[in-house]
């Protein structure tokens, strides 16, 4: 079982969980009424994008895949982040 605990995948999971808890902490209401907040939005979108990148690279094993698949998967993630923040910004 130790080999599974001391495994790169488990380390990635621990990091993903830590980012999830941190983003929840940033995004919770704390009793205040929700208002537009670009800082919170950009932070949580960026955190989601970092998590998505790690899932694609390590869990989906795209880091060892052919270049076209890497470019497509990473491109989707980066493109989505740019478009989401762009639409938010313009709105």
């Amino acid at each position: 079982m130790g080999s599974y605990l001391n495994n790169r995948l488990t380390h990635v999971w621990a990091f993903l969980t830590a980012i999830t808890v941190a983003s929840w902490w940033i995004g919770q209401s704390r009793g205040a009424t929700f208002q537009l907040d670009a800082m919170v939005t950009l932070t949580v979108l960026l955190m989601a994008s970092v998590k998505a990148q790690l899932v694609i690279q390590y869990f989906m094993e795209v880091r060892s895949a052919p270049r076209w698949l890497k470019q497509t998967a990473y491109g989707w993630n980066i493109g989505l982040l740019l478009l989401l923040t762009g639409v938010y910004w313009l709105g």
Partner: protein
Amino acid sequence: MSNTLESVVHKVDVREQPQVVGAFPGQPSMWFFIIGDLLIFGAYFIAYMAYRSQEPDVFLQSQQAMNQGVGAINTIVLLTSSLFVALGTEAVRAQKIRDSLRLFGLAMVFGALFPVLKIFEWLPKIEAGHTPGENLYLMFYYVMTGLHLFHVLLGLVILGFVMRNIKTAANPDVRFVETGAIYWHMVDLLWLVLFALFYLMR
């Protein structure tokens, strides 16, 4: 003759060591499906953001009624399930069949928690009259988390087939296991974005 033998050895190498650069995790057809699904969900995500900017107050007000804690727990549940699938896939490659069955079993337990949590999240909202017709936020919320839930349920069925293959086949089909695994990770991946858009952003 030696060329034929080499090509066979090469094929076996690629199949059993997907870590090799240039190797393909899972079947290419599954990747085409995944890329298509990512593009469709991506279009919905962007549409959500565009409609949100038209009436941010309505979206923010409805979003406030969401339970961010449940959203975070759902995220950790899926990430944990994904970890067990990834470790289980490694175990199959290493021919550790008993380990892989345990790991995929744990993945299914965590995966099955997700729909249960979703039902407990949806029911009180629907009972309180917060239905898809109330406003655009709730329409997007139910449609997109509903579509995602359908993917989770399909993923659980796929993981069941993967486990059956590991259990019954004399030599588990590594490529089949990987194919099921990447589908499950995509389900996890989509939820990461849904969590940020429907629960966390302002």
